[in-house]
């Protein structure tokens, strides 16, 4: 398929394709990090993860409407406010859900799956009732549209870059929070040995709630960021759920680094295959390879070897 192209054209395409892979990577990272905390650290299967993302997207939509109506002069910067709002609102809903539902189900991980699926149905219908069944278009500030011209052929989409930067910042922030802060220590303590953590005076209930809220909040930011590249509709969240879980499981559920490595591996595999094959087949092959590897190596890529 590369007949009749000059080397520089091919180089440009490969550079662009590399960038496509990276932006898929950052999408996966954003999707998966929130879940990695909730699922990996707490063992809760949050099937409503996609709906939390969409909540973030709707928050962005509302914020953009608000800025257009009342603060048009500041419209260029609304996206940052929107992301903060998305985080706060999703985290608040997350904390509520944890309090009302999840905390009673820690002993029954399979049941959290069903309960959160129910939650996702309710949220979807709520979105449909509030925002209507149609998808909503989120208007972006001018500076986020378009691309940076690197060479004649290589153009880097600004929104792709933006998503990438957010993904990096969140991953970094999360790493600092989990491994370099007192709070992160508490979370890990509770994950590893709950009774002991309680015995040394950690309020494990509060830690759970904060952890869950944090995961949901990150989902909200992800959803907010995705308004730049995807659609926002009542059922859009469902499209993410299988990919997200596979990324987390493939990485080895308890390892945040693993999640990032696996997001990288899957995104590169998928975008490379998409380039050489047709889209649908690329997707099927990627999923098959991931499932196949997981069957051979159920603990995922970066499993901790722990004595049990």
């Amino acid at each position: 398929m590369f007949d009749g192209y000059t080397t520089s054209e091919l180089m440009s395409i490969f550079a662009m394709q590399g960038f496509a892979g990276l932006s898929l990577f950052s999408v996966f990272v954003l999707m998966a990090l929130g879940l990695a905390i909730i699922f990996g650290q707490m063992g809760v299967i949050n099937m409503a993860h996609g709906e939390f993302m969409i909540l973030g997207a709707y928050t962005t939509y509302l914020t953009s409407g608000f800025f257009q109506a009342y603060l048009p002069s500041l419209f260029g910067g609304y996206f940052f406010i929107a992301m903060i709002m998305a985080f706060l609102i999703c985290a608040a809903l997350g904390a509520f859900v944890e309090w009302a539902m999840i905390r009673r189900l820690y002993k029954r991980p399979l049941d959290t799956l069903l309960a959160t699926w129910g939650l996702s149905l309710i949220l979807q219908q709520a979105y449909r009732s509030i925002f209507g069944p149609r998808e909503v278009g989120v208007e972006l500030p001018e500076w986020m549209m378009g691309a940076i011209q690197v060479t004649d052929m290589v153009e880097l989409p600004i929104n792709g870059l933006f998503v990438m930067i957010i993904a990096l910042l969140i991953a970094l922030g999360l790493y600092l929070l989990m491994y370099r802060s007192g709070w992160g220590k508490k979370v890990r303590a509770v994950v590893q040995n709950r009774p002991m953590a309680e015995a040394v005076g950690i309020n494990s209930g509060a830690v759970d709630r904060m952890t869950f809220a944090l995961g949901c909040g990150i989902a909200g930011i992800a959803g907010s960021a995705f308004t730049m590249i995807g659609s926002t509709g009542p059922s859009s969240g469902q499209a993410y759920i299988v990919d997200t879980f596979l990324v987390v499981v493939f990485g080895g559920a308890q390892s945040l680094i693993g999640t990032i490595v696996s997001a990288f591996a899957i995104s590169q595999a998928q975008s490379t295959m998409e380039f050489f094959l047709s889209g649908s087949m690329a997707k099927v092959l990627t999923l098959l390879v991931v499932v196949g590897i997981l069957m051979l190596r159920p603990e995922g890529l970066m499993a901790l070897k722990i004595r049990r």
Partner: protein
Amino acid sequence: MKMHAQSTKAGATGRWGLGKLKLLAASMVLAATANAATPPTSAVNTTDLAVTDDTVTVGILHSITGTMSISEIGSVQAEKLAIKQINEAGGVLGRQIKYVQEDGASDWPTFAEKSRKLLRQDKVAAVFGCWTSASRKAVLPVFEQLNGMLYYPTFYEGLEQSPNVIYTGQEATQQILAAIDWAVKEKGAKSFYLLGSDYIWPRTSNKIARKHIEKLGLTVSGEEYYPLGHTQFNSVINKIKLKKPDVIFAIVVGGSNVAFYKQLQAAGIDPTKEKPMVLTISVTEDEIRGIGGENVEGIYASMKYFQSLDNPNNKAFVAAFKKEYGDDMVIGDVTQAAYLGPWLWKMAVEKAGSFDVDKIRAVSPGIEFKAAPEGYVRIHENHHLWSKGRIGLAMADGQYKLVHETEELMEPDPFPEGYQ
């Protein structure tokens, strides 16, 4: 919510608010159609349909819930509007139309079930409904078995011709041949990149497109499909950049649409520059609302109807629609096609002088609807509509500007020779 509240209200009018309407209608009947003395029920209904001396019941069958409700809501609104207008104008054979609305819930067996219920239990005289091909395929055996009449509004892939269905949207060749001929003739297009969501309509349409392009001696530089709901198009956009086609022929649907056009923009392919130009048959004004006008500005769509069509029929239709459902409503191709359904049925009933399905079928071919918002349509022997092909250019405000329209009506050809 707002939308739905209104449609329920409309439903209430349809079902319960008949008293008031009847008065109104009666006066109109007197004024307008003095000759339409109400014929006796026994004469117009020999097959035990739900027809009384002053009412006739029809069915509306679309998804109100589930993923497809996004698309189908406009059709429901249009069908209800048409029924309301017909009633205000005196109804059909002197009978007011009542409707029973059922929810297909985006689930194909539910469609089959509900159509069975409508035909069996409610004994409706006709059904206006279905949107996806899958739902139509699911109800088709039911309609054929129970001899019902379905008015199906969506543009679709063709390859079907049922005696029990009137297809009020375009079949694939009507949309595609006009689009490609226009691109070649007016824009000098030599190469096409075919792209679609992965299901039967895009695949069949692209197949027809490919055959036609190859017949013209031009090149197809790529063809591929992505799963429904796919949101990452960077790789295919790169491929397009590599292949440098003149036209991207895109049949992407649903949530994928938004992602595709946003990413296309972001990757520096600005449709307004027409290098390459983007040609679609899947983005109506309805879809643009979700994608955002600024993201699709400059793309071309091949449809038979745009909201902006400048003719008196359409102006009246758009005004009535907005009056009924609010000023912020947009009307896409399918919505207009759905609006045709009740009118075409009414005319067939009146021509046949009967509600019997067999008689309606017999008289349907040749029926003309001169007041159609799209202009003029006529039912073909094959139950599809003769209609014009039109090309619109998407504007930033979410409307299409008509840039081309075929001179003659295009003949519907659901089983096109040489394109299979």
